């Protein structure tokens, strides 16, 4: 029998991973997605498309955990219910609820891409207008400042949508992990 020498810190690290799966899964998925795209030398528009899909993917991970619970992978899940049929019914209902959350998150992702398009164009137009020569002494036009104002509004909307979609997916994942762990 072989023994492996302990470094000391790895026990604490593994305990952290086990007890904080609700943090580790989303962060590790995001990091892996970014690293894979960066090492594949894809441009940032592609990385962006991949990252905006992350909330939906986290919900799909939650759904697969629930399906795993339904299949009997987790023993602790069944101990929460009075009977096997109660546990099965709850798991089936949870899968249906997660499916509807997927639909909502998909709509939010589509809206996020729409806002990204607007933000991209606002800055494109800003660059084009800034490059044009100005007449000295002329009254400053709102066209340039207006683009920046709209870009700011799009950024605020984007942040709210991201917090909402990640909120839905991370909280759902945490709840599912709480049920099966």
């Amino acid at each position, binding site marked *: 029998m072989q023994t492996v020498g302990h470094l000391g810190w790895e026990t604490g690290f593994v305990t952290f991973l086990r007890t904080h799966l609700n943090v580790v899964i989303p962060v590790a998925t995001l990091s892996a997605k970014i690293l894979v795209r960066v090492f594949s030398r894809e441009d940032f528009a592609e990385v962006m498309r991949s990252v905006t899909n992350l909330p939906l993917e986290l919900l799909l991970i939650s759904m697969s955990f629930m399906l795993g619970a339904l299949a009997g992978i987790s023993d602790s899940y069944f101990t929460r219910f009075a009977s096997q049929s109660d546990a099965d019914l709850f798991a089936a209902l949870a899968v249906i609820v997660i499916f509807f959350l997927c639909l909502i998150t998909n709509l939010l992702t589509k809206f996020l891409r729409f806002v990204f398009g607007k933000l991209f164009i606002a*800055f494109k137009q800003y660059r084009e207008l800034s490059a044009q020569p100005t007449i000295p002494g002329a009254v400053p036009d709102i066209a340039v400042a207006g683009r920046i104002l709209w870009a*700011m509004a799009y950024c605020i909307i984007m942040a709210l949508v*991201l917090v909402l979609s990640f909120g839905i997916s991370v909280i759902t994942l945490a709840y599912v992990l709480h049920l099966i762990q």
Partner: protein
Amino acid sequence: MLYTALTLIGTVLLLAFVSSYIILRAAISEPHWRRMMLFFVIMTPVVSVIAFAKVLFSRPKPIRYNAELGRIEDEIESERVRTFGGKVVYPSFSERWKMSYFYAVEKSAVTAARLDPALSNFSYKISNLR
């Protein structure tokens, strides 16, 4: 329970900020504008919580509609459709802003007309502006 809630909030904010940075990097090529927009993104959750709390205790004042800004948004939207494809989204953000502003003004005019009947003609004129 509180610890779990805090870690969840921290995770959501972290994921949202990293995603925002990637989106901003794809959309904005100027680093100084990107930094400024990232600042707005970081401030948004805090400001929105404060704004929500404020709305609960006081009535928010409507921001005056600017037709020039509305026209700029229409230009942005039409170029977005030309570049990325799809349909022109209606009502746009500016159209929603215009409707909510006129609704707030109309509501104030109706309240004023109720208090002073001499202002009812003024209230009718505002309703026709929409």
